[in-house]
């Protein structure tokens, strides 16, 4: 069975950029969230294998989502895709349990490399 994917970003373009970078097997069933609150709600309702997460968002930001996932002990793999590329932010999200940090705009090859690394391709 293919992996289930959730993409969380407040930008429509950024969500599409991630969708377009995914292989058909993952993109065809991917679900979308426009802020962290929506993502946490979806994560509480169903199991996802993979979450692509933006950091700078209204309502609940990416850090809030990572903390929520940790608090609820959810087992989703989180790939952070962010414009905020400060080294401190990268180490912060990795400490909060993210599997990878990718800078925006997302590069397809790099994304696939990380998907391969976790056997998600």
């Amino acid at each position, binding site marked *: 069975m293919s992996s289930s994917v959730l993409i969380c970003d407040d*930008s429509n*373009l950024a969500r599409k950029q991630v969708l377009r970078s995914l292989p058909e097997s993952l993109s065809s069933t991917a679900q979308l969230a426009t802020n962290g609150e929506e993502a946490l709600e979806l994560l509480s309702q169903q199991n996802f294998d993979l979450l692509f997460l933006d950091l700078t968002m209204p309502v609940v930001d990416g850090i809030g989502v990572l903390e929520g996932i940790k608090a609820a002990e959810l087992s989703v793999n989180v790939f952070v895709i962010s414009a905020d590329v400060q080294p401190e932010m990268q180490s912060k999200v990795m400490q909060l349990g993210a599997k990878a940090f990718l800078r925006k705009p997302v590069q397809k090859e790099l994304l696939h490399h990380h998907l391969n690394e976790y056997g998600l391709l």
Partner: protein
Amino acid sequence: MNQLILTADQQDCLQELINVAMGQASDQLARYLDTFVHLKVPSIEQVSSEHLSQSLHQEEQAVAVVSQGFFGYEGIRGEALLVYQPKDSDRLADLLGYEPDELSVEEQIIDLSSILTTTFLNVFASQIDNQMSYSAPRLLASSQSSISEHIEQQQFTWDAALKVKITYQVTDYSFNCDMILLIPSAAIINITTVIDRILEAF
């Protein structure tokens, strides 16, 4: 054409291009300051040419403005203004951690502005397949009239002003400034065309 009239999709695309550019500008700033910068989503608004001088005049206090020209291909050119309110410019020395005698406040403002402007525009340009060069940044005298005069006396005719409100939280306090990009209609047409190309690709 006096305005950059964008559809909701175009606006979303421009916002994302600016978010990415601002993220990298913040990273440069953070490295320069050797600290962590808390980043907010930058807000974008357009100011019409008639209202720009007026909106600067409305500020009762004097402001510090650093002006820097930028030049790319295909009619992309303009002037970037970084506008600081006094409470923010006064804090620059603390923020930058300079010793009192090391650099004048004026030099500090120019340093910081040039980092923000050039990093922001380099990243923005690379996303729209362009490349920028820059003139030397200048700090304008803080009187309202000299700033208005500067805006009116640009070497090129600018038709739109795009205002990007920048808010950074640095350690214990927040720091604000506005980046105003004055651009001619050729640049507006070019940016809109590139945005449409990006949108078509998705």
